[in-house]
């Protein structure tokens, strides 16, 4: 379980993993839990995963990025219960040249969203909950609690 973490994410150790004296540029991305989604107040959420596949898919993404650009990539995704403001995902990409670090960092977050089997169940200020479906109209697939499923 190298890429998934039940503990809060910290960018510092990820940067330390990828930095080296010959890699002078580090591009990073941290995605945190927002306080709203599709017009509704969010008070927290839970991430779950198909862990074996998620680990495998993250490993593939890192290997593909490192094959495509001269970069080193570190990546973590949080699982479990998160509060607003907590980091859900953290990425650090180091390279000798910043253009490549930015390009690879950007690519890694897009691939992660597209390929890694992780799901998000949001809890709302009105007491309801929903599985988030980024592809759906309104952004959620189902409701629980105050509204019918």
């Amino acid at each position, binding site marked *: 379980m190298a890429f998934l973490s039940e503990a809060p994410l910290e960018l510092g150790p990820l940067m330390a993993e990828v930095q080296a004296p010959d890699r002078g540029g580090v591009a990073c991305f941290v995605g945190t839990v927002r306080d709203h989604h599709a017009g509704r107040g969010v008070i927290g959420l839970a991430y779950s995963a*198909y862990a074996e596949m998620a680990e*495998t898919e993250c490993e593939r993404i890192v290997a593909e990025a490192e094959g495509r650009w001269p970069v080193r990539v570190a990546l973590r995704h949080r699982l479990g219960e998160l509060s607003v403001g907590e980091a859900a995902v953290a990425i650090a990409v180091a390279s000798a040249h910043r253009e490549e670090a930015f390009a690879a960092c950007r690519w890694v977050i897009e691939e992660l969203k597209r390929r*890694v*089997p992780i*799901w998000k169940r949001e809890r709302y200020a009105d007491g309801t909950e929903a*599985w988030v479906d*980024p592809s759906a109209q309104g952004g959620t*697939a189902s409701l629980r609690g105050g509204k019918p499923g």
Partner: protein
Amino acid sequence: MTTDSAALRIRVRFFARFAEVVGREAIDLRVAAPATVADVLAEMRRACPPTDVVPAKPLCARNLSQVSLEEPVADGDELALLPPLAGG
């Protein structure tokens, strides 16, 4: 469901909303060889009716890799049915 020697044993796994609505995390199926992912899904809908939450063409992973519905399956495969991904 067949039980002859040419039957493929496939474990179907459910996650997130699918697991919640189906009420279980996995079912073990047997399908006649040769079979594709689509054949496994058809057998699942026949053998396990509360799987209506699974759309006609769900995102599927066979042994940890996303595959199309036309992908052949083999004995012992794990087929995961993935609700819309929401990581990141």
